[in-house]
């Protein structure tokens, strides 16, 4: 019982950790790309 719970707890925690890492990596990259694209479009006008 406690082993199952331990495995479940560890899995959730480790997935959550890597999820936070991935979100923090991806968010600025995509936002930067979007912003640069908008700047480029504005400069074209």
């Amino acid at each position: 019982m406690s082993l199952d719970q331990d495995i479940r707890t560890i899995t959730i925690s480790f997935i959550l950790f890597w999820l936070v890492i991935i979100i923090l990596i991806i968010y600025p990259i995509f936002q930067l790309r979007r912003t640069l694209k908008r700047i480029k479009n504005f400069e074209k006008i």
Partner: protein
Amino acid sequence: MTRTLPKFMRTNLLLYISITMLLINLFLIFGLTVSNLIVWETTGDPNRLVYMIFFYHVSGAWLGYFSFGVSLLSHGLYLKNNKILFSRIGKNSIIVGVFFTAFALITGSLWYNATVAGYGSRPEDYWQWSDGRQTMTFVLLISYIAFLIFRSMIEDKEKKARLSAALGIVLFPTVPLSYFSAIIFETLHVLISPIPEATGNIYWEPLKMFMLLFNLIAMTIFFVYIVKKLVDLDLEKEKLEILIQKRLMEA
């Protein structure tokens, strides 16, 4: 700003280093636990795998505290030098800190729930308001979320930077309060102890401490990379805003 930075700050090198270190550590945590080279045994709660959570929970909490420390320093420097870059570093450090403090709180609750029987609580319990560390860290998290909401509500850039710098400094005492709450007040929180017999605590084993330190270094490098990226993003967003205003003026 970008041109004056050393090459490793301009590339993704810091990201590659930190991710590699984190992956090595992940491999070590599982490898050494499976091969019984590190044993998760505390007095009164023997052989519990759940204690593996320790490396990530502590790393998350460390990065939270560290981020808020950097924000305090940056906000202080902004008030002294009036350079907007410091305000941006301060705000972005807080964003990273909020993410990792929330992570530390969630993993802390899960850890508490998994070991709840040892504290004589109900199996469905995830939260204990009477616990100093848990409650104070929650107060810390809410305070810094409020900071981000407050900052986003101010339009004027100068005013935004100055007021948020002041607020960032005022909020900082919640960090030492959260840290020392486990020492000052009565707590259920597990501590790292140099004494092997200390009930419910994690023994100060050199291998575990090395792995923890390794993770902390990796996380700190990751923090530098992310804050740099978020500051770059703010710079480009500002460029866009200026461009929009210019076009509006022309129209």
